[in-house]
């Protein structure tokens, strides 16, 4: 009886989830999966909990039914790109465009100290003239990155439509030195573009670019980011990117979380969010076919008596369904039960949710470590990474998760390498890329 009640208690959220499942599995509808890392919590004390809000992209039925894309490829042709780099970039762009068809719109912009619209926004019909224009690109000059992105966005905007995938793909190998050059300013441009439904993917080539700027620009508009050390890998990255672009099934995913019953939101880990009182808002630009993206919200739950249940938060998702070509809304509720039994609490743990939460928390540690390192506090950075590795290690054991185990190894390796001066430039780019990919669940 006693246990029965308890079972009943922690089953309720599960049941609720089960109730949502039919909707989730319905083809051509995004799945909204809400879970709590600790569905049963210790009674009698104030504690924190991790809510995982997962969005599951449905399967794109066929290539033929994909949404048209509107892509601007913005290529750096500054002096540092000369030689093999620009040649590889040209071929990568051409290869990528080859995978598009007549539904799609493409434009190519190049920049050095000047910006040049190489191919104005056009449907991919006369491929040869597009390729010819790209092949004429020669490297030389400075890096007017901001203006390049601006003009790229303008080309996309010429045919802007909510039902197609709009993206600016920026390739740069150097520091922006004409026009705005701070990550903050580029980030705000990304923010504005995101509001129009344009996301910016940034590809950093070689070791000369500013990874903070590139991740901020991508982050605020929720595009992808990649660090490509070797120009020969550009083709592969472009293919991944275009694969992503062509498999978008939902766009403009706005998540609003309202914490109930005195639950206080602490932070949304890994993503930009707006927290006002008990409300948390965040936005994802796009969800790809069969892809799961999630956000982790850390909340503070006030003390409750054992045996009681509590509604923690309401989640509402508004998004643009590209398959149905209409705006959809989903919502869900997260609940928690309280128990006095340690064992019960342990048993109830939602391993997947906790795994995700730990992954993100450790990722956040990694960011903090990088910040410390930037301030010159190498010891502090290392100790943060070691703390992170310890957390990952303990959770990997308790959850028997190979993923966390791998991440722990990574953290330990980072802790080793973070003190070395030699290869710090590359290491920093790798770290930024990894952090970015982990927090945005980038597909490649």
């Amino acid at each position, binding site marked *: 009886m006693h246990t029965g009640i308890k079972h009943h208690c922690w089953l309720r959220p599960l049941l609720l989830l089960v109730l949502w499942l039919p909707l989730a599995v319905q083809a051509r509808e995004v799945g909204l999966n809400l879970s709590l890392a600790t569905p049963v919590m210790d009674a009698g004390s104030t504690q924190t909990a991790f809510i995982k809000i997962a969005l599951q992209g449905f399967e794109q039925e066929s290539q033929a039914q994909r949404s048209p894309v509107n892509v601007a490829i913005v290529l750096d042709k500054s002096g540092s790109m000369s030689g093999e780099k620009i040649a590889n970039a040209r071929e990568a762009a051409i290869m990528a465009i080859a995978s598009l068809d007549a539904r799609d719109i493409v434009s190519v912009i190049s920049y050095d100290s000047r910006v*040049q619209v190489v191919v104005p926004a056009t449907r991919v019909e006369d491929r040869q003239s597009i390729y010819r224009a790209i092949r004429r690109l020669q490297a030389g000059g400075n890096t007017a990155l901001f203006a390049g992105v601006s003009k790229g966005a303008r080309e996309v905007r010429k045919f802007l439509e909510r039902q197609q995938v709009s993206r600016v793909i920026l390739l740069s190998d150097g520091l922006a030195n004409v026009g705005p050059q701070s990550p903050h300013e580029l980030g705000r441009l990304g923010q*504005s573009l995101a509001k129009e439904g344009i996301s910016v993917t940034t590809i950093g080539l070689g070791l000369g670019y500013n990874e903070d700027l590139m991740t901020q620009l991508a982050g605020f508009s929720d595009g992808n980011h990649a660090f490509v050390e070797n120009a020969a890998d550009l083709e592969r990255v472009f293919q991944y990117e275009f694969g992503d672009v062509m498999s978008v099934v939902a766009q403009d995913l706005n998540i609003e979380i309202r914490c109930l019953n005195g639950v206080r939101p602490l932070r949304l880990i890994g993503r930009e969010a707006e927290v006002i009182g008990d409300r948390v808002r965040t936005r994802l630009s796009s969800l790809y076919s069969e892809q799961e993206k999630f956000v982790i919200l850390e909340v503070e739950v006030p003390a409750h008596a054992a045996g009681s249940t509590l509604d923690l938060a309401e989640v509402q998702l508004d998004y643009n369904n590209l398959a149905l070509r209409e705006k959809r809304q989903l919502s869900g509720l997260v609940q928690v039960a309280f128990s006095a039994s340690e064992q019960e609490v342990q048993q109830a743990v939602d391993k997947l949710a906790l795994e995700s939460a730990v992954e993100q928390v450790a990722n956040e540690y990694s960011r903090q470590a990088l910040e410390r390192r930037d301030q010159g506090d190498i010891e502090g950075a290392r100790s943060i990474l070691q703390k992170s590795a310890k957390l990952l290690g303990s959770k990997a054991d308790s959850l028997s998760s190979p993923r966390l185990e791998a991440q722990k190894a990574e953290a330990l390796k980072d802790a080793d390498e973070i003190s070395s001066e030699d290869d710090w430039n590359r290491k920093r780019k790798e770290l930024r890329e990894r952090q970015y990919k982990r927090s945005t669940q980038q597909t490649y």
Partner: protein
Amino acid sequence: MRYRAPLLLILLVLLPVLLLGWLGLRLQHNEQQLVGLQLQTLIEQQLQSVDQQLQTHFRQLEGVLAQQAQRLQRQTDHDYSSENLRAFIKDSVYVEQLFVLGGDGNSERLFPPRFAPLSQAEQRFVEQMQPLWQSPDLFRPAAADPVDQRQQAPVLAAGDSSSYLASGQLRAPSAPAELALDLADADSVTAKAEAVATAPSGWIAWHANTGLMQVYWWRDDQGRTLGFVLNSARLLSDLINRLPEGELGDRQLGNAEIRLLDSRGSTLYSWGGYRAQGNALRVLWLNHPLGSWRLEYHAPAGTQAGAQGAFTQVAPLLLLALGLGLLGYLLYREHGRELRLARQRVNFVNQVSHELKTPLTNVRLYAEMLQERLADDEQDPVVLRYLNVITGESQRLSRLIDNVLSFSRLQRQRLQLRFESADVDEQIDRILQTFVPLLLQRGIEAEFAAGIGARLRYDAGALEQILNNLLSNCEKYAPNSGRLKLESWLQGSSIYIRLQDQGPGIEPGEQQRIFEPFYRSSNKLTDGVAGTGIGLGLARELARAHGGDLTLEPGGQGACFLIRLELKP
């Protein structure tokens, strides 16, 4: 002396060329200044038209924002609920933050709410904007707003540039892309008209620690102020998108560059075909609300047109110099030939004189020998008289030839003095004696007052020639004049000999010219008298060659010549 002719000719060529060159340079300089001025105006107009394009963006943005403000007002029924405003911010592409001020003097903040939780971004925003909200003076109605005052200037400039466009020198700016906004519904169009007509609004350029922020404020009919804080990165991006790029920019500007610079002086955007560092040819500060930004025009300092101009200037000058040079050369050649001919003639005369001298000497010698012989035999006086005439005339002829030879030597600067010891008085007397019969015939009575009486070293030949010339002149030009007085004395290291006749003398106007070679004074007296015209000049040149002089002394009746000869120590 020798190079005078070529020097003169060179001067003749160079002077006009230099003069014309200088004038040409002046002209070109003026022209360049004019072109520079025109270029400056052209640049100014180009920059103005860019500023105009940027201003257009603000005008359009203003329209859009006023429209959105109206819509917000209507949606919320003057209530401006936080919910609505946040939703607006979330979707607005241009606006990063929004504030609403109300109450007395707009000092009360209605949004972001004062008594409700704020997001982190909002908290930062409130901290940043606090000073702005405390200065309500900035929110002045449109009439006092600097935007509208300045609006006139760009419009005027646009008028200028459009008239310039008509001449086809400047490409028309491409039509600005319309702002991307989905506000096509009919009611908002009418709302826009209202808003523009009635509501006070304006722009504020606000310097916060993150840089320049542009704030558009709009006052509703209840006196509340809505402030739209623009996303400055997006604003810059939109402004850049209005400016030309790539080949279009190159074509518009040619070999020049326009740069847009922010308040810190760093380049935000640049276009045009010219890429080099250096000072700007022209700077234009932008109008409000981009007051601290500026446009710079860069171009190479000297234009190619100038180089071409210089060539077209130099080419005619070169041609002129060439022509004049040729002319000068021809003249010089002609002059040379003349000189050669003259020299040939002189040589000829010289040769002939030499040829004449030998037979004449024989004639004189034999005539004198005959005279001596006949004088002993006391022959017929008529024969003696004839002989006297023959010797006299042959002496005269030999003097003439001596003169010619000396003159030609003088001309060739080959006159050489031969100093030898001789008695001056005796020599003078001897020369005088040879002239006495002639002088007596002409009614002149010569008397000599010798005052030296010593042997001295001097050139007896030169003195003889001088005296011969003076005496024969006297014989020619002062007939029947009575007494001819000669006197000699020694003074210092010079011999002085004075000749004074009682003839008609020399007119004052001619006193200088009589020494010039080939000059013969012309008056009643001299008419019909033969002469070569070289005698006096030659005499003076000889005296001067001897370190002395031959001068015409003033005063008294008749002519008075003074010979001075420097003695050889």
